[in-house]
């Protein structure tokens, strides 16, 4: 069977379409994800290694990998790694996510 044992991210040589040369300007949250990755993996902190972050992305699976954007994959991997290492818990993450959503909604209503 062709491509047995090939993981989705390991895509060199696969058939694909023309290269879309357009770019996009990076919204603030994407810059923050980049910064977060740098801060966690740098030699001063080594909270999560870059190899662990890559593995986290690879483990998202083919369907998620295709559907999610680059930065959505990164933030998912960062989060999963933090959960696995017990640095944050799902409980506190869920509460904090609800809190930031409420804050943003309130700001949106005022603005």
């Amino acid at each position, binding site marked *: 069977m062709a491509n047995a044992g090939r993981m989705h991210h390991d895509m060199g040589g696969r058939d694909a379409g023309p290269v879309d040369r357009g*770019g996009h300007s990076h919204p603030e949250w994407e810059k923050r994800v980049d910064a977060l990755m740098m801060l966690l993996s740098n030699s001063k902190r080594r909270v999560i290694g870059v190899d662990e972050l890559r593995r986290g992305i690879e483990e998202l699976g083919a369907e998620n990998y295709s559907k999610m954007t680059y930065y959505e994959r990164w933030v998912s991997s960062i989060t999963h790694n933090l959960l696995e290492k017990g640095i944050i818990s799902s409980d506190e993450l869920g509460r904090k996510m609800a809190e930031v959503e409420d804050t943003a909604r309130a700001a949106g209503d005022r603005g």
Partner: protein
Amino acid sequence: MTMRSEDSVLDHYQAMELAVSALLIDKGYFSAADMEAEIDAMAKRTPDIGAAVVAQAWTDSDFKARLLADGTAACESIGLDMGPTRLVVVESTETVHNVIVCTLCSCFPRMLMGIPPDWYKSVNYRSRVVREPRMVLKEFGTEPSADVEVRVHDNTADMRYLVLPKRPASTDGMSREELAKLVTRDSMIGVKIVEAP
């Protein structure tokens, strides 16, 4: 704790990032100021840095030799912060045209070039440039002749790659600063050549 202003409607992943960052700040893994500083540092990393390295290599044969022997050491010797980057500089010549990719993810010499362009990270580029590089180069308007060796570099491990593009003819006498302005990000990835002015 200050946070930069956000869009008023957050999607799931934006909320996740804000929440994770807030929790990590609360737990003391880094400060809000650290994040601001990192974002500012990233903004300062643009292809202009790489272009200056190329222009210096074109005009200083000793630097060029050192750059090709050990990219990181040569860049550090001219005061550049390379962080943990282990740089390999590959020279495009009359006989070899180099092009860089990371098929497995998006490895890129960020300290010299900033963040990689979207197309470099795309499924289509990562899939096709290793197998049909000349067709991909043609999409970028680059067509090395058949007797030139097209050499693809797949960034699979710890090194980061920068193409030292061929200096165009008719640039004799240009200053280093003028030469640097000709050098584009895409020419240092290898999908474009440097055009004569």
